[in-house]
């Protein structure tokens, strides 16, 4: 495991390259531009030829120190749909297994002159660190329990597509908020676009410092337009710590079942699901579940992110309104 020295944790002062490290670095205009670009990419996926030549000749490295299906595969496909070359490095089966530090791995991959490095790492700040030691544009695909910006963007995209106007929407985020980078990124993204959030879950898993209403009563989800279910993250719970008495107890009190939802209330989940724990299979498979749309949104939003970090995006941010493409 790499140990970061203090200097390396310093955020890069005015990075010369465009990175996507955190939702905190985005403005409302950035979000609108990214969602607009994603919308245009979505229309290109309706064609017979789904590939665009946009990033031909560019190299995109996917460096994953944690397991992932959705995020890594959608980044890979996003790069391929834009005609970029991809290099996928996973910690298992690579030199990381032999004890290579993040710095050396980053420098090694940096020697291939990649245009973008997409990184997922269990330690907070790893993407910032890679941005400092390499020349590449860096996209954070999840660092510890800190940030997962592309997940937040694809969730906004999904909400706009399936529910409509974001401003004034009310979303209940249910479950293990404490260990969730998704929740942290989402709350920042919600604040940018005017979505109200309520955090619901066991008291030990609801951090108090987050800017949202909290409730330990599952009944609080009834007020929300959309219920966002988080995964129970056993891998981030320290051994011996009892955040919840048991998974069965958690399910009994906070599991999302048809009985606890209003008819037609929409449900989201970032995946992977623990069916029967935080979410009832009847909900996961119901027409009110937006989970498949989230996965599909992930592809086009990640295409937009790769395009945007490399191009700087259009200035003036007259991002394409959804109506213009319809």
């Amino acid at each position, binding site marked *: 495991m790499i140990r970061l020295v203090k200097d390396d944790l310093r955020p890069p002062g005015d990075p010369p390259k465009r990175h996507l490290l955190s939702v905190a670095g985005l403005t409302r205009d950035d979000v609108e531009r990214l969602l607009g670009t994603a919308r*245009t990419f979505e229309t290109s996926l309706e064609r017979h*030829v789904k590939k665009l030549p946009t990033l031909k000749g560019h190299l995109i490295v996917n460096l994953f120190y944690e397991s992932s299906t959705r995020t890594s595969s959608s980044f890979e496909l996003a790069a391929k749909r834009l005609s970029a070359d991809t290099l996928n490095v996973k910690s298992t089966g690579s030199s990381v297994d032999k004890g290579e530090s993040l710095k050396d791995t980053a420098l090694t991959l940096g020697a291939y002159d990649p245009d973008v490095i997409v990184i997922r790492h269990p330690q907070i700040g790893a993407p910032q660190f890679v941005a400092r030691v390499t020349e590449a544009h860096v996209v954070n695909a999840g660092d510890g329990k800190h940030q997962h910006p592309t997940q937040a963007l694809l969730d906004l995209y999904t909400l706009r597509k399936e529910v409509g106007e974001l401003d004034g929407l009310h979303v209940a985020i249910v479950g293990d908020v404490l260990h969730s980078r998704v929740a942290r990124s989402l709350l920042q993204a919600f604040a940018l676009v005017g979505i109200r959030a309520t955090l619901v879950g066991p008291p030990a898993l609801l951090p108090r410092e987050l800017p949202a209403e909290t409730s330990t009563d599952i009944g609080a989800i009834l007020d929300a337009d959309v219920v966002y279910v988080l995964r129970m993250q056993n891998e981030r719970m320290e051994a011996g710590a009892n955040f919840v008495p048991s998974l069965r107890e958690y399910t009994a009190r906070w599991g999302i079942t048809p009985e606890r939802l209003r008819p037609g209330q929409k449900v989201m989940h970032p995946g992977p699901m623990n069916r029967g724990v935080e979410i009832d299979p009847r909900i996961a498979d119901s027409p009110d579940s937006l989970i498949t749309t989230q996965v599909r949104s992930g592809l086009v939003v990640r295409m937009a992110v790769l395009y945007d970090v490399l191009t*700087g995006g259009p200035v003036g941010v007259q991002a394409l309104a959804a109506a213009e493409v319809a």
Partner: protein
Amino acid sequence: MSTHAPVQGKSLLDADGLARTLSRIAHEIVEGNPSLDAVALVGIQTRGVPLARRLARLIEERAGVEPALGAVDITFYRDDVTVRGGEAPLSAQPVVRATQLDFPLDGRTVVLVDDVLYTGRTIRAAIDALFDYGRPARVQLAVLVDRGHRELPIRPDYVGKNLPTARGERIQVQLVEVDELDAVLLVGSPEEESR
């Protein structure tokens, strides 16, 4: 008309001149294409789109057949998407607009429509975009103004006006649909016309 123009420049075509020019292009398209129902007019975003719409209307008035109408955005097909190794792109990327081709391209004669033909790079990108949607039988090019300075072996089939220019100059086409008036101006700007 050019007195109303927000941009200072020498007027090359006023509203009447522009209307006459489009009418002539429409006539030439009808002449050049005996089977008009196989023709599709595809405007290149932004100003090629209203031009294509006007041409379609003129063709219908003249021949009684309204050709299919589409729009293509070339942003993702540009050859200058990124400046490799640079800190920031040299010029801002243009706003991404919609590509709409709601008809099968296969077997059709596609007439690409744009306002100004300059280096030819936009046309190259538009042709690439078209072929990702299908296989047209023939692709033709109609432009309101050809200002020269080609960098690629591309030539227009229908030209409204040939206007030899210096590289430092800029041709600005203004259309009611976008700019609230019809005019073609020559602007002596050092900034290059977007390609």
